[in-house]
């Protein structure tokens, strides 16, 4: 809150100016006044988009006051078009810079410290799209939805734009001065009162900086807290091996996989290459075989959805279940390892164990990040017993610079604060005030014991609010930095653009603690790597840094540095493989007591779209439907249909016109209560409640801030405690009698016996010979392709292309990355919760989810189905448009002419796939300048009143055609990669020329599993699907 001194900001500024200009009592002219830094800062605050000011009542008043003052000064601003300094016309363009042609730069995004390598597209210096870096092990060309959506965060006008002290704007120099004073004080006590709190750090440079500071201040401490981090994984490794290790799984080598509450397909470090590898083992067309995935889990996840066998277990049952499997696999668990009664699942476990044992050395047991150390240790032991170590399970040095159990680290910090030992707390990134567990909450009460609090973050958030100094952080696309991938490979993060809002990087902040306090992050990162890369041609990580210290940093280094920047990876930095053996006493932990079936259990999870809350102000992610519930803009307490019935809870689906009204309940857990809407989730174990973290932010920005009038979810951190961060028993659920409105993009998850997603078991599929198969797949679909008219001759039109797409449902893991990629590529707007409630979301590509099976409590799937425009040969949308606004091209695409559209919406009514999206209102933000920088210049920004839909990324098609025509050839297969295809980690989407029999898409379409959606309508879609295959264990008769 602004202090009293803010009463007249203008007067204050004047005072400050006068104070700094010693000797001068009055400024003689307005020009003189305008020369001061304070005034420049004042101006900077005046004119940029100070929208966030409007949200804070006091801020708004201040803003109005300042506006008034600036209006008075407005006469001063001159009207020159060019700056007075010499500027150089763009006569000779920089090398490689052709106006209109994008450039790509390698960089990386980190999430919980783990990097995903990216290639950022830059149009005239503006990053406009992110693609995966094929050379990066954490990407292999794919990205997840977080990486795709991070572009929006870069341009978010709500990002923090000013450095503030107690919410008063201050210059960086003043911060430095203030900091130096405080540090001088600390220096005397060797930094005994100095604490750093970071998120997970994998950045070698940052780690080196921290070490340097800790050397200078030996009594200072570095704590790490990550709300959705991998602390338990480290603890598990500690338990099993007595040392931290990083585990890497090779899913491409695995024939049998057991996932113990692990969502390795979407939400762990390395999930992109894991998904690639996993799906690589399911390509039955080539190998005539498939891997088999067993998933044991509480909250239904994408991994459970793809599993051949999914077993839903309450969290308290999982450890004992794991013990039972371990026992069945012959793991020696010592004294505590009494063979656990597998109970109701005995047959399941026995069949599973037989199957895993049959695939020795080619199986994986992967425990979830949220599971207890014991489960992790058991999994390590099982992998050991199965001979997987070194084959499908690789142990390496940890990738974190300092692997700690983040809860423990936080507990120490809180202990120090409570004991009054902390005088200066530097929070580098993260939002601990919001994300810390309820019993270790870093709230104002606790933090007021710390004399000086500094917070670096992208947003002025809950933490900034109660810190003295808030320093705006530079986005990773504005920063120099480095980070490690899941396997330890380092990427140098290079900026694509100057900081839009004068943000500082963590490196620059930490540099302020050293003697060279004003170093730029470029210098810091480069200097660090100069030290690392020096004379030798090979870099092996900073751990060996001492021995490879450079002696000849000049020529060699420059070359290597440039290559590392260009490639997006620093060669040979993958973490070294480690040989570890199980500790003798690893199994000494007593088994957990048997669960009491009567009590409700609670599960906490990072949110699938806004993660731990850091993406709360990202509209793309807020509006991205959660993979299984299809909810947007909210989290909910997930309960099974049976539990809901037992508790008398209702979901009213659509009874009030497109809206979903659900009962709101009070979740009471360890005497803390939150009010949450309930979502009935098929596949959730009975007697459990899952809540997702990250919502209920009180200070996130215009999109993410949750208020009483306009709630954006509820804050699950409020009931999360440090001793049970992921699950616990004894939650109570009380009906409140109130209802809550949720916004979901899909409300009906039953296929109603329509052949929408087709599935088949591998055995059946292989049994059928090719000829028989086609018949079997289509026996009930008569040949509808008869027409009175001859088919259009695409071979002899124009350049003879016929574009088509094949979507392999067997590959789709429902990760949603394609939706955000499409949104980013095609300038698709965010519409907001209220519009989603009215079924007006604008996503051109959606991923449908359908549950199968008869039991709603324990269904199959859901099966995922990405649905873009089908580009039908006989498109029903075309003949009904009265103005020719949607027409067929000679290459077979169904094109939308925005300029011609008058908006009758008849096309959408007649579209059986309902893939058309209408601009009911002006959804595009036409005014925010940063969004104008963000948009893809190749794609029209649609106005209100027009229909739009998937174009097959026609801009990419045109680009490839132009390139090919320049070279006098036709477009080669693979030249055109649609945005959804590019981002997909499992190559579920393939696009190409179906006239070319050799193209990948044509081959897929000729395959046995190919089918058209709603084939019997004779729309003859260009987008076709490949049926999904499942590989159930014949020994487990029912999908359990």
């Amino acid at each position, binding site marked *: 809150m602004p202090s009293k001194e803010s009463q007249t900001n203008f007067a204050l500024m004047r005072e400050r100016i006068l104070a700094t200009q010693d000797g001068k009592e009055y400024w003689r002219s307005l020009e003189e006044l305008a020369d001061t830094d304070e005034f420049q800062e004042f101006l900077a605050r005046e004119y940029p988009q100070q929208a966030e000011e409007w949200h804070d009542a006091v801020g708004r008043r201040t803003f109005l006051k300042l506006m008034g003052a600036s209006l008075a000064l407005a006469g001063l601003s001159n009207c020159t078009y060019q700056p007075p300094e010499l500027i150089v016309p763009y006569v000779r363009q920089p090398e490689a810079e052709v106006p209109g042609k994008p450039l790509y730069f390698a960089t990386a995004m980190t999430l919980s410290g783990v990097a995903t390598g990216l290639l950022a597209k830059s149009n005239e210096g503006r990053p406009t799209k992110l693609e995966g870096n094929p050379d990066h092990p954490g990407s292999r060309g794919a990205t997840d939805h977080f990486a795709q959506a991070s572009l929006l965060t870069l341009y978010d006008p709500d990002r923090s734009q000013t450095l503030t002290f107690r919410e008063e704007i201050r210059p960086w120099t003043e911060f430095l001065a203030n900091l130096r004073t405080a540090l001088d004080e600390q220096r005397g006590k060797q930094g005994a009162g100095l604490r750093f709190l970071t998120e997970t750090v994998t950045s070698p440079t940052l780690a080196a900086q921290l070490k340097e500071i800790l050397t200078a201040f030996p009594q200072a401490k570095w704590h790490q807290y990550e709300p959705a981090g991998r602390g338990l994984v480290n603890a598990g490794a500690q338990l099993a091996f007595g040392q931290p290790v990083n585990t890497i799984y090779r899913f491409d080598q695995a024939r049998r996989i057991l996932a113990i509450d692990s969502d390795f397909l979407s939400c762990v470090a390395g999930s992109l290459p894991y998904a690639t590898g996993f799906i690589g083992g399911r390509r039955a067309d080539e190998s005539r075989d498939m891997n088999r995935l067993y998933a044991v889990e509480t909250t239904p996840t994408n991994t459970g959805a793809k599993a051949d066998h999914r077993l839903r277990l309450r969290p308290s049952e999982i450890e004992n279940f794991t013990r039972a499997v371990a026992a069945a696999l012959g793991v020696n668990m010592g004294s505590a390892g009494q063979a656990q009664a597998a109970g109701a699942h005995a047959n399941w476990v026995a069949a599973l164990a037989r199957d895993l044992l049959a695939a020795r050395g080619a199986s994986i047991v992967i425990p979830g990040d949220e599971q207890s150390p014991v489960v992790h240790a058991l999994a390590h032991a099982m992998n050991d017993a199965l001979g997987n170590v070194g084959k499908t399970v690789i142990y390496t040095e940890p990738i974190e610079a300092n692997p700690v159990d983040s809860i423990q680290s936080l507990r120490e910090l809180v202990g120090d604060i409570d004991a009054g030992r902390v005088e200066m707390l530097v929070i580098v990134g993260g939002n601990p005030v919001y994300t810390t567990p309820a019993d270790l909450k870093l709230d104002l009460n606790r933090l007021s014991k710390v004399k000086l609090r500094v917070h670096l973050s992208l947003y002025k958030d809950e933490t900034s609010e109660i810190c003295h100094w808030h320093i705006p952080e530079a986005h990773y696309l504005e920063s120099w930095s480095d980070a490690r991938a899941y396997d330890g490979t380092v990427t140098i993060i290079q900026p694509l653009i100057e900081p839009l809002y004068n943000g500082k990087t963590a490196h620059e902040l930490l540099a302020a603690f050293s003697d060279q306090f004003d170093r730029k992050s470029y210098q810091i990162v480069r200097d660090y790597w100069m030290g690392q890369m020096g004379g030798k041609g090979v870099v092996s990580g900073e751990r060996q840094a001492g021995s490879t210290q450079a002696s000849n940093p000049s020529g060699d280094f420059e070359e290597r540095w440039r290559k590392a920047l260009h490639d997006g990876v620093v060669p040979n930095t993958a973490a070294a493989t480690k040989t570890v053996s199980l500790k003798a006493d690893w199994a000494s932990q007593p088994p957990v007591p048997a669960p009491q079936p009567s009590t409700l259990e609670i599960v906490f999870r990072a949110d699938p779209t806004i993660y731990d809350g850091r993406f709360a102000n990202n509209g793309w992610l807020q509006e991205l439907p959660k993979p299984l519930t299809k909810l947007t803009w909210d989290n909910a307490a997930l309960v099974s249909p049976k539990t809901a019935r037992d508790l008398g809870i209702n979901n009213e689906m659509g009874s009030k016109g497109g809206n979903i009204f659900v009962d709101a309940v009070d979740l009471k857990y360890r005497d803390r209560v939150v009010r949450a809407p309930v979502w009935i989730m098929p596949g959730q174990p009975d007697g459990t409640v899952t809540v997702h973290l990250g919502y209920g932010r009180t200070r996130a920005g215009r999109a993410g801030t949750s208020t009483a009038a306009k709630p954006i979810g509820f804050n699950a951190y409020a009931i999360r405690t440090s001793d049970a961060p992921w699950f616990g028993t004894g939650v109570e659920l009380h009906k409140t009698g109130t209802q809550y409105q949720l916004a979901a993009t899909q409300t009906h998850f039953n296929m109603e016996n329509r052949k929408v997603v087709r599935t088949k078991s591998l055995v059946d599929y292989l049994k059928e010979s090719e000829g028989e198969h086609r018949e079997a797949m289509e026996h009930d679909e008569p040949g509808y392709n008869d027409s009175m008219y001859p088919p259009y001759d695409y071979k002899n039109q124009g350049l003879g292309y016929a574009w088509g797409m094949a979507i392999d449902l067997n590959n789709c893991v429902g990760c949603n990355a394609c939706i955000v990629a499409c949104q980013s590529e095609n300038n698709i707007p965010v519409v907001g919760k209220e519009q989603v409630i009215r079924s007006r979301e604008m996503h051109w590509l959606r991923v449908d989810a359908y549950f199968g099976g008869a039991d709603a409590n324990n269904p199959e799937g859901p099966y995922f189905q990405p649905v873009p425009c089908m580009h039908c040969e006989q498109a029903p949308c075309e003949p009904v448009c009265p103005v020719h606004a949607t027409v067929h091209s000679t290459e077979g695409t169904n094109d939308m002419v925005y300029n011609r559209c008058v908006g*009758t919406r008849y096309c959408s009514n007649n579209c059986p796939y309902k893939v058309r999206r209408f601009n009911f209102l002006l959804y595009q933000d036409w005014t925010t300048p940063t969004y104008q920088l963000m948009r893809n210049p190749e794609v029209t920004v649609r106005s209100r009143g*027009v229909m739009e839909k998937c174009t097959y990324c026609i801009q990419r098609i045109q680009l490839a055609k132009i390139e090919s025509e320049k070279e006098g050839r036709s477009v080669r297969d693979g030249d055109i990669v649609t945005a959804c295809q590019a981002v997909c980690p499992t190559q579920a989407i393939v696009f190409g020329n179906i006239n070319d029999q050799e193209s990948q898409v044509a081959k897929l379409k000729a395959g046995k599993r190919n089918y058209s959606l709603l084939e019997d309508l004779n729309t003859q879609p260009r987008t076709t699907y490949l049926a999904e295959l499942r590989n159930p264990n014949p020994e487990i008769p029912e999908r359990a």
Partner: protein
Amino acid sequence: MHRVDEPHDDLQMHLTAPVITPGHTFASVTDKISALTLRRRTPLGWYIGFAISFILVQVLLFTITYLVMTGIGIWGTNIPVGWAFPIINFVWWIGIGHAGTLISAILLLLRQEWRTSINRFAEAMTLFAVACAGLFPLLHTGRPWLAYWLFPYPNTMGIWPQFRSPLMWDVFAVSTYATVSALFWFVGLIPDLATLRDRARSRPFQIIYGLLAMGWRGSARHWHRYETAYLLLAGLSTPLVLSVHTIVSFDFAVAQLPGWHATIFPPYFVAGAIYAGFAMVLFLSIPLRKFYGLEDFITMRHIKNMAKIMLATGLIVFYGYMMEAFFAWYSGNEYEWFMMRNRVLGPYGHYYWALIFCNGLTPQLLWIKRIRNSIPAIFIISVIVSIGMWLERFVIVVTSLHRDFLPSSWGMYQPTIWDWSMFIGTIGLFFCLMFLFIRFLPIISIFEMRTILPEAEVEEETV
């Protein structure tokens, strides 16, 4: 005129309920009808009614302004329910507009002379209903300022409209219908406007009516040409009665959506339109004849005839409903059959049952003679049928769209306050125009009424 042997019942009815109450003369007919506009003081009720409808017109104007400035997102329309209130209301108004042409043209050609006393305001009703209807397709577009692109006009873009689209056909059908109806109505008014001109006392009225009468002097040549023109226009209008709603039904029938894609739509829509139109004529004429003392001219015979037409068309419509359900089942098409079950039992099921009650069951009461003789009963039935016809369009448009082929895209529709204000606003516009018409133009054709007097018949025979 010559009458052939009529069935006993009709004869009976003739005796009890003539087309015009005996005792009137040429002069008394002219006096009585023209006095409504020229002599009588405007009743207080008129002012109240006009004021209310005028306020509703302001609501309409406000809605339209807000709509054009903000976008059609102010309505509840969404994806999958891409058409909703505007199209429902459009079809409803167009349907109402059908009775006018039917009465003026087809009944004229069939020489149903009883039509004479109701055709004028039925035609006016048609015009106003079409005006209200016309607003919706224009304003329901995303960019109404470009809706003129639906017209085939020479343009620099070198693009024709898309002639395969039923919306295109709609443009022609509705604009033709509006033009012909307006002409027909105006041509029919000319002799009466001349009467008003001659009888008006104030100078402004004399001038205005004089201009509108286009120099009508009642000469034999005028009459000759008039009769020819009127007959031609009647001939022209006749196919329109069938075509307009047929084409409106094509908007649905051409689409491949279950619940829309049905060959039964054209006849069933036309019958529905006539049904709705007569309900509206009854709804208007019953209070009109009461408040303006026109029981002499709009007699029980008219009311009963219209009730019978309503019953007949209502039966066709009900048959349509049954056939829709039957074919949904008989087709063996899973989508069709699901659509029907969803229509009947789904979340909008209560609309369907209300529709069956309003349109299917209620008119069956008209089989009963006592009800046919009861003006309040007929009035209530006409209101119920009007509501029922609106429900019918709601059921067709919304329940078909909201759950179509892919369950993932199923949605729900809920109108917003702006949907209602637009609809109620057009009702206001309709009544506002109706009130103005009642006040300033002869609501019953004077000269045609005179031709059905016995005097006219005698004269004809002697000549």
